[in-house]
């Protein structure tokens, strides 16, 4: 069966490709969105944390030869780095408006990228999928890489766990309350500084997790976080700042838009996601699932 000039199988396969692409966007988008939604911090170092996760994972893989160890260790290590950054740097800037933390994290991203260049070299490191996840499998509509299927399933599990954490735990309740009205939460006697510490580390850890998951798709280079940062911002804005469900929806949407544009008009791919963002902002300025006044 054909739809326009394209067979249905191809469109379906393209859709799955978009979802796999979207999985990475979802993970980086959630972290950025959480940090902004709760702390009103525009984290410009998010791409650098993504890259750091990939390097930590690949570095450990060199010692252990086990991808699963890297998959656990990378988000933990980057999350720990996030803890330090919040405690030692970001915390000093609370109450100073939105610009100061933005400039701080912007500068921090350069420090992280340059440190990795010095430690690991300029040229990047090759990295393939673990042997068990190599190759392509027939999914009924054509062959699809096994690793990308794993990526979709794994991301779904991470999102489900996050959802349980935010919706079903008392700490999650505080996060949700804090995202809605920070002052009231403070008035209720909750130590928000602890909440912010955890949320910042969680967001960074998710960026690190996305980094190690992306490593087998493209290898690792010190600059790999730069395009990701722009894409993560698009996801956050489209989904609505601070909305978990919004980030998931927007991440998948961006992935699918990229995939479909690549099929129909390959040279428009880079522009398409920004066109999507402009469109969403025109129709719904707060993002798909964002609350009104999140930026106020």
């Amino acid at each position, binding site marked *: 069966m054909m739809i326009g000039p394209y067979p249905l199988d191809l469109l379906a396969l393209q859709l799955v490709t978009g979802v796999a692409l979207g999985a990475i966007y979802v993970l980086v988008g959630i972290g950025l969105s959480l940090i902004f939604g709760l702390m009103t911090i525009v984290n410009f170092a998010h791409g650098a944390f993504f890259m750091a996760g990939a390097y930590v994972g690949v570095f450990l893989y060199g010692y252990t030869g086990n991808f699963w160890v890297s998959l656990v260790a990378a988000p933990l290590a980057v999350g720990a780095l996030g803890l330090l950054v919040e405690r030692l740097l970001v915390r000093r800037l609370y109450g100073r408006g939105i610009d100061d933390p933005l400039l701080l994290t912007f500068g921090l991203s350069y420090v992280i990228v340059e440190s990795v260049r010095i430690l690991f070299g300029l040229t990047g490191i*090759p990295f393939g999928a673990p042997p068990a996840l190599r190759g392509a499998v027939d999914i009924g509509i054509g062959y699809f890489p096994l690793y990308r299927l794993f990526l979709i399933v794994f991301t779904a599990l991470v999102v489900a766990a996050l959802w349980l954490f935010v919706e079903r735990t008392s700490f999650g309740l505080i996060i949700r309350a804090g995202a809605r009205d920070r002052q009231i939460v403070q008035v209720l006697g909750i130590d928000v500084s602890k909440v912010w510490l955890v949320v910042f580390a969680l967001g960074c850890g998710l960026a690190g997790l996305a980094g190690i998951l992306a490593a087998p798709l493209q*290898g690792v280079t010190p600059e790999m976080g730069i395009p990701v940062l722009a894409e993560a911002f698009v996801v956050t804005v489209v989904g609505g700042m601070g909305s978990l469900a919004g980030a998931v929806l927007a991440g998948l949407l961006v992935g699918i838009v990229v995939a479909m544009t690549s099929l129909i008009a390959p040279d428009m791919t880079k522009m398409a996601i920004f066109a999507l963002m402009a469109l969403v902002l025109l129709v719904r300025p707060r993002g798909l699932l964002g609350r009104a006044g999140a930026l106020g």
Partner: protein
Amino acid sequence: MADETGRSGAFSRRGLLQGGALALAAPALMRRAWAQGAGPIRIGFPVPLTGAFGAEANDQVRAAQIAVKEFNAAGGLDGRMAELLVRDDKLNPGEAATRTLELIEKDKVNFLVGALSAAVTLSVNNVARERGVLYNSISQSDAINEAKDFGRTTFHEALNPHMTAGAVGRYVFPKHGKRVAFLTADYAYGHEMVRGFRRAGEALGIEVVADIRHPIGASDYSAFLPRLAALKPDVLCLCNFGRDQVVSIQQATEFGLKRTTKLVAPVLLFTARKAGGDAFEGVVGGTSYYWRLEDSVPTAKAFNDAFRAAYNGAVPSDYGALGYAGVRSVLESVKAAKSTDTDKVIAAMEALRADFYKGPQYFRACDHQSVQSVLIVESKHKDQKGPDDVFTIVGTEQPDEARLRTCAELGHKA
């Protein structure tokens, strides 16, 4: 007596004037004499030491140093030694123009060799041509041969996309099939490679089933791949370079394209293959040089041995070897011309019939393109003997002017 005095007075007056003129001109003359005779022969070498092609550029420097060392060890030009002035052009045409101008104006280089990117090599050539300094380019470019960018001081040691893609196409299309798809980095290098493949393919009756352009430096190609997989082309030409080549080959392999399709890269890089690992298995491409050429070419063996001795047993890469050849062509011509005078060296380079490291080569008269062999290599994986044993040479297109675009097509009069 009066006569005598008059004569001597006239003589001394003229003498004074002449002497004064000489004295005024002396610093300039001495500088010129120093530049031409006494000081070292200085070769400016702008390459992208930092940036995406850093690995290749550093290898170019290492190999170029060997050419300088060999020249000096053989006594130089009547005792005049050569030296290499390496500068980082950061893979940026503007930066390259500035560094080149400094090399010419401040460092007073006699010659220029270098650059690794079509846009950068044109930028260096532009500055060198304006200042009348001989420049031997070691970067792939078609435009540098064309009359509008060419100058009599311009030489092109590297292969050009027309001859490289042409040779690869003539090898691949008859052997692996006529249904061809392109996935191309959207800039001059990619466009010139596609044109080269299409020109070679026309004569062979290929059918182009897709011609997809991707932005340079893309990190994900997956969205292009289902369509390419569905088309089941016989051959997929990946017209991109460096990291783009590594990532696109890795992802095409991941999507299982190799089941139906031969993956082809116009220039299959030694460094990219080493960085990409086993995903490259079976990929075919062209190259100017591969170190295993030493099995059949004695000069390749000599060059590799010199490189191994200097750098702990490492072998030179393809682009590294071009750094060696680029500098050696200039220095051999200096020796033949017995001078560093630009005009004399140009004449000597035009007359050069060399076998420095890969078999015979010479510069074509009209565009100074180095006419040389193109190697076709296939990436191996399972039967590698050591980490440098990455390719099998499966074909060689011998040096042949008929494989170049004609002088008339390039806009040259001759």
